[in-house]
């Protein structure tokens, strides 16, 4: 088992520009079941002679039964792509695009309400489950291993770092998911924790937060009352000064709750195993599980 994606995943890809095409090749290489590509002017053609193009998401869904969609569409058009996938009834939408206007995300968030679609991202590395060989996004397929650790993070490359540490210490992953670095995003830490808690394959959870917002505190509250599995937590950005945006639009300390120290405190109080520095995630897991 895994969470959100797995053997039933039928992926649709939207936004096949240079980066999108490159990443789509990587996903195919890894073994992801890609059933459709969407491009307004390529109907009838095939991506790498394998994946049929359709001119709209609705048509692609009608013809292929795609249930998951990934978006590499440039930021100015990304909101529209998300809306199109929601309207087409896609269950899980993964938006990799970085730099979507925040007012667009306000609309997306409101639009999602009352629909059955779930959104991962935007500005995220996506999701990967090594066992079913389902890679949706840009997490390098060669660094993950099948196993029992669930990884959830606001970051991209820091997730890879955590995965590498896990592998080095002998631990594979059930599912790794990057929820994205934007302040307004889809699936939250809490949503993911709930799924990992229910997932039989997941024995422990790694949660990697960062400064800004209060989603880590929300996660802590959820851990306290609803998570029985061990959670190893790390917060990036303890050396970041307030009021300065650290790359991610969401990584800015604007209030007390946004501080790394506050997040650490909340997670520790909730019973999570906190690592002093994100360099020691793998060791901490080993220490707990062995």
């Amino acid at each position: 088992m895994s969470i959100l994606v797995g053997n039933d995943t039928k992926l649709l890809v939207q936004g096949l520009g240079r980066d999108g095409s490159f990443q789509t090749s990587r996903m195919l290489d890894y073994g992801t079941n890609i059933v459709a590509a969407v491009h307004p002017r390529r109907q009838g053609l095939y991506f790498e002679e394998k994946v049929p193009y359709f001119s709209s998401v609705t048509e692609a869904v009608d013809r292929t039964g795609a249930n998951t969609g990934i978006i590499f569409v440039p930021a100015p058009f990304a909101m529209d792509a998300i809306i199109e996938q929601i309207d087409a009834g896609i269950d899980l939408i993964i938006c990799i695009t970085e730099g979507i206007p925040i007012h667009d995300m306000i609309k997306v968030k409101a639009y999602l309400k009352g629909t059955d679609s779930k959104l991962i991202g935007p500005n995220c590395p996506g999701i990967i489950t090594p066992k079913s060989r389902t890679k949706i996004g840009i997490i390098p397929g060669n660094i993950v291993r099948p196993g029992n650790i669930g990884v959830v993070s606001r970051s991209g490359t820091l997730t890879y770092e955590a995965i590498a540490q896990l592998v080095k210490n002998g631990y594979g992953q059930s599912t790794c998911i990057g929820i994205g670095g934007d302040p307004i995003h889809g699936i939250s830490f809490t949503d993911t924790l709930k799924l990992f808690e229910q997932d039989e394959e997941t024995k422990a959870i790694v949660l990697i937060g960062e400064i800004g917002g209060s989603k880590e505190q929300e996660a802590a509250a959820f851990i306290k009352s609803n998570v029985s599995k061990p959670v190893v937590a790390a917060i990036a950005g303890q050396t970041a000064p307030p009021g300065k945006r650290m790359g991610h639009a969401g990584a800015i300390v604007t209030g007390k709750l946004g501080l790394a120290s506050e997040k650490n405190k909340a997670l520790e109080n909730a019973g999570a195993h906190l690592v002093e520095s994100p360099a020691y995630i793998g060791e901490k897991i080993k220490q707990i599980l062995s």
Partner: protein
Amino acid sequence: MNLHEYQAKKLLADYGVPIPKGKVTSSPEEAEIIKKEISGKAIIKAQIHSGGRGKSGGVKLISSSEDAYDSAKTILGSNLITYQTGPKGLPVNNVLVEEATNIDKEIYLSVFIDNDLGVPIVITSTQGGVEIEEIAKNSPEKIFKTICSPLVGLSPYKLRDISMSLSIPPSEISHMEKIMGSIYKLFIEKDCTLIEINPLVITSDNKIVAVDAKINIDDDALFRHPDLQELNDPTQQEVLEKRASDFDLSYVKLEGGKIGCMVNGAGLAMATMDITKWAGENPANFLDIGGSASEKKIKEAFKIIDDDPDVEIILVNLFAGIARADVVANGIVKAGKETQSTTPIVVTMRGTNSEQGLSILKNSELDITSVEDLASAAKILKNKLSNTE
């Protein structure tokens, strides 16, 4: 993107929000002329991207046109240092000369986005003229928070509730509600991330005036506002940050650190910064080179770090997914050659083409220490730091 006060006020005026009579200028002579057109007292205000100007000598009350000339002469061309600017301050290239407002009641008003709720929020308080952090600390009960809706905006009933909470005089309620509605409209239509009017003043003759104004625009939305792009003032950026933004690099200069950081990915960049602390030092900067940086961009990134006089050791942490380690290595080596850099570099390089990248670095003239991962980097850093002391 931050706007200057005069730019923010111009936008507000475009949306029908009353602002004090006045003009912006870059010359003392013109300041004198502007004052002549204003009867009564006037205010001269330094235009920099920072709060706390009043306490730092950037805002002056003037009674005559001579005053205007003198104050403008003093302020213009200076570097104003406030509690927000850092020790170098920010250059004052323009001053705003405005009529002074007779204040009867000062209101605090801001609109921003609540990230957790994912909607715009309006904050108001009867404690206008005081900074919001201070109000939050000293009289949180005087902060009135209004949640807005992406579908119906700032509803009339909410405007009514705000008016009530502010005890607006009955004769001014409809005017105040119209003004607040206009501010909200501006916030939405111009992709703002912050509008702060502090104070929004009710004058002694019952007029409403935005006496100070701060507006931030979402950088990611500037593509649809060519008019706003023009309001960018690069003189207000830190020199190294300006260079970085010209190359589309996500860079933040940090005060008081000695370790220059060069990383791909914002989260990993923060984590890398954090291990410098574990090693007993502080980071000199945040730098995310992004996913698919060209050699040219990497070169500039390296130079920016190396040109920072605070930097004593450079820490490169690359986990190449989209990025290619060989490209990064080449960029670093070429930059180092051009600037004849001698700064010691600690490198961890993993992912796509990392072996090639490492060998490129090792075969260069640079002072390279290569390590396996973040934990090893921290240890090496600690070593190096204790050696230099």
